């Protein structure tokens, strides 16, 4: 396990570069992001450990970072002052571009993985904005009317994007639809829908809505998403069956889940970071031979355990809330990086903790 200390800054998000297996970007904020400056680190993995190749300071806290898919030296940051900034790590000090349209804290930025000329940002001001790095103003604004903690493009389509927000809904937007009254919104799924009743388990009663903090698209199954949030549950949904409720529910985290991300190598593996200071690896039970643990005792089944998924391991080295986690795209499957409010970035192999 490799470690880097972001002295004086509490990590919020970590991302592996899509171009280099040895480059990691970390967004961090002073004072746990309550007040003060932000800093984005560009870290290099070297035989001698992790070194900071570069860092940029910002006036306000930073909550998320995303690498450009079209330019290996550029990355985006999401700022507490509502700004979205594009940095070029071959330059010093200043962002090459800064967009100031959001009225509140920007909590997510994400680059389009298919059409690599657009990216998005989502904010507490209740909007998602679509941008082009060469345009000075946003291309489109999609309202969610709710604090949008997380938004992402589908990795399978250039025009489909999704968001989760504090109103406990998963929204799917399709930019190909006319920008009519629905503002490209094509699907609005309540995350707190209870799972379908089934044999051997009591029907789950109403689940209260709770803020959804994070979500991610499955990299192999193009209609599957995972969401997680304040209610400590990770859920997976199939957008082909928007009313069917979750297809898997994964309980286990003791506090809210701050980040969830699908493996780029395996279609059923998830990684999560939580306020309970742990990062955990999960299978959603969709792969052959991994589920089935729950079948032994049909009578005592918890209705909120669903879909045959289970926790496969946990990493408890963080000593404050774990807030960011990401998979390495290269090399052996299982390498990942995590960050948290303990001012640390850890790079580790999750195969070591899996049972």
């Amino acid at each position, binding site marked *: 396990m490799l470690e880097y200390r972001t002295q004086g800054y509490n990590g919020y998000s970590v991302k592996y570069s899509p171009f280099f297996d040895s480059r990691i970007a970390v967004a961090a904020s002073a004072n746990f992001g*309550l007040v003060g400056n932000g800093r984005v680190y560009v870290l290099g993995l070297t035989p001698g450990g992790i070194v900071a190749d570069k860092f940029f300071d910002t006036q306000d806290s930073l909550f998320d970072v995303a690498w450009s898919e079209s330019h290996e030296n550029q990355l985006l940051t999401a700022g507490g*002052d509502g700004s979205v900034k594009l940095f070029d790590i071959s330059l010093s000090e200043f962002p090459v571009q800064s967009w100031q349209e959001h009225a509140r804290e920007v909590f997510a930025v994400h680059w389009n993985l298919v059409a690599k000329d657009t990216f998005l940002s989502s904010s507490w001001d209740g909007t998602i904005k679509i941008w082009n790095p060469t345009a000075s103003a946003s291309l489109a604004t999609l309202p969610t009317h*709710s604090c949008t903690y997380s938004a992402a493009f589908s990795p399978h389509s250039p025009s489909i994007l999704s968001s989760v927000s504090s109103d406990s809904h998963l929204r799917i937007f399709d930019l190909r639809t006319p920008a009519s009254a629905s503002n490209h919104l094509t699907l609005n799924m309540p995350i707190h829908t209870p799972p379908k009743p089934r044999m051997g388990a009591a029907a789950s009663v109403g689940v*209260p809505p709770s803020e959804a903090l994070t979500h991610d698209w499955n990299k192999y199954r193009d209609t599957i998403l995972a969401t997680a949030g*304040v209610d*400590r549950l990770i859920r997976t949904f199939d957008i082909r069956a928007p009313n069917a409720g979750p297809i898997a529910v994964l309980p286990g985290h003791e*506090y*809210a889940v701050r980040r969830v991300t699908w493996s780029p190598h395996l279609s059923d593996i998830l990684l999560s970071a939580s306020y309970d200071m742990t990062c955990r690896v999960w299978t959603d039970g969709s792969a052959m031979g991994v589920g089935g643990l729950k079948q032994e005792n049909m009578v005592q089944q918890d209705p909120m355990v669903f879909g045959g998924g289970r926790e496969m391991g946990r990493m408890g080295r963080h*000593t404050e809330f774990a807030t960011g986690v990401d998979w390495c795209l290269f090399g052996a499957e299982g390498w990942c990086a995590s960050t948290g409010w303990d001012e640390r970035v850890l790079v580790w192999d999750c195969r070591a903790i899996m049972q």
Partner: protein
Amino acid sequence: MTDALCGPSNALQSFQKHTSVDRTLQQDRLTSRQSPTQGFRSSLGPNVGALDPEFDAFQAGHAGPPQPAFQHFPPHLAQHAPPPHFAQAPAGPDWASDFQRLNIAPAHPTHMQQHHHPQASSAAASWHQDFLNQPSSMQAPSYAGHSFGGMAGAGMGAYGRPTYQGFGAMNGAPMQQVANGKQRAEEGVPKFDDAAFERAFELAQQDMFEQADLLTALEELNKMRLSRSAREDLSQGSVGETDPVLLRIREKRPQVYITIKLRSEIDLGKSAEALPYLQDLEDLESRGALTTDASEAKWCVDTLQKSINREAPQEIKSRVESLIKSINERLMSSYPLLATGVPIRQENIWDELRAAGYTTDRSPLQHADEQSKQKEEVNPPRTDQDEMADTAGRLLERVADNTSEKFQNSQFLELMRRLRDREVRVEGDKMVEVSAQSSNFPLPPAETLPEIDRKILDHAVQEFGMPIDSEPGLSHHEPTTDEVTDQFNFYSVDSSYHR
């Protein structure tokens, strides 16, 4: 709009949001009850006992019970009653005396409760005349113990006119049975309704808290961020105060705001409403917060003095007087006579108050102290700090049962602890130790409250102005405020005329 949804960076609002998540249960509970349109009898059911004393009081001529009860007469009666009279019935006392004057005793003495004083009914309103003219064909005695008290009995008796013979026939015991039966049935339901539901509700709530619990708070913490926009939102989130200027005053000068409110409540004669403000001021004083700015403190003293110079209940008067005394003691102790640099910036207060429409004239001080004004604005609103501390405290409560080593050693939670205990505070873009408190004044930091010399007043003239007022005459200048002049002293806004 999204502010309301997303919650603000100050967490109290988010807390409200989270506590309001539970609406559904609440509503279930309400709708499962009898619809209020069923009115009088059904709603009376469980409350009979409670209503009786009220009714007695009503009969004795005190402020009456709410009139709407009358609108809920059973329909067959209501259509004969002239509703306008009831609807417009003025405040309790008049109404009650009308009622007392009403004489239905001669026909059915048993209708009357003992403390009804039969009187001439000449002055009663016209419906009372009608009422009295009715041939009384009803069997009265069965109403004596009727749970609705004399009122219902009287009403029914009055409307037992010939056309209602059928009704009259079933009116005695059967009617009562109907009523009682209904009542019993309802008593059955409420038992389920109230007690059981209460329990179920608490259970559900507990569940919910356990589920959604802690990390709602932690997530809220994120929102504690004080971004610039958030700070602007802050004032809009406050409940109960809509005047933007007053809001600004509240943000910048809480004590001035509280004093204004206190004075206006006292002036309006609402001593009950005034008490919380008085309590607030006393708290502020005991923390020494009232006297951090000498000019504000002096302003408060002046205003308080004026407000009790007029009519005020004895209790308030004495409390305000002792408050004034303690403020003065603290002021004089903390800013000794020869101390330099006591900030006098009263003109700013007047500016703000004038902007708020609280004064029409102002003291003739014209050279506004620009510099100190700017400094004033740098001062973060105190309410921010309070809400941060509150939130931090609540967050800590929620993780209090987590005894894991990690949580015990968490620096973040330690920071929350210090925020709660106000050892650190947010200032601008920084967290600062309170001991290094920003004094905008060249005075020693008020970390520990200065000693109060309880006898300091004995050395001073009893007519306090500011002990070291650099602008003599200022304290004697009283701008025209919302003061009620003598000619209206007799005039009580609480009289029934204004209802």
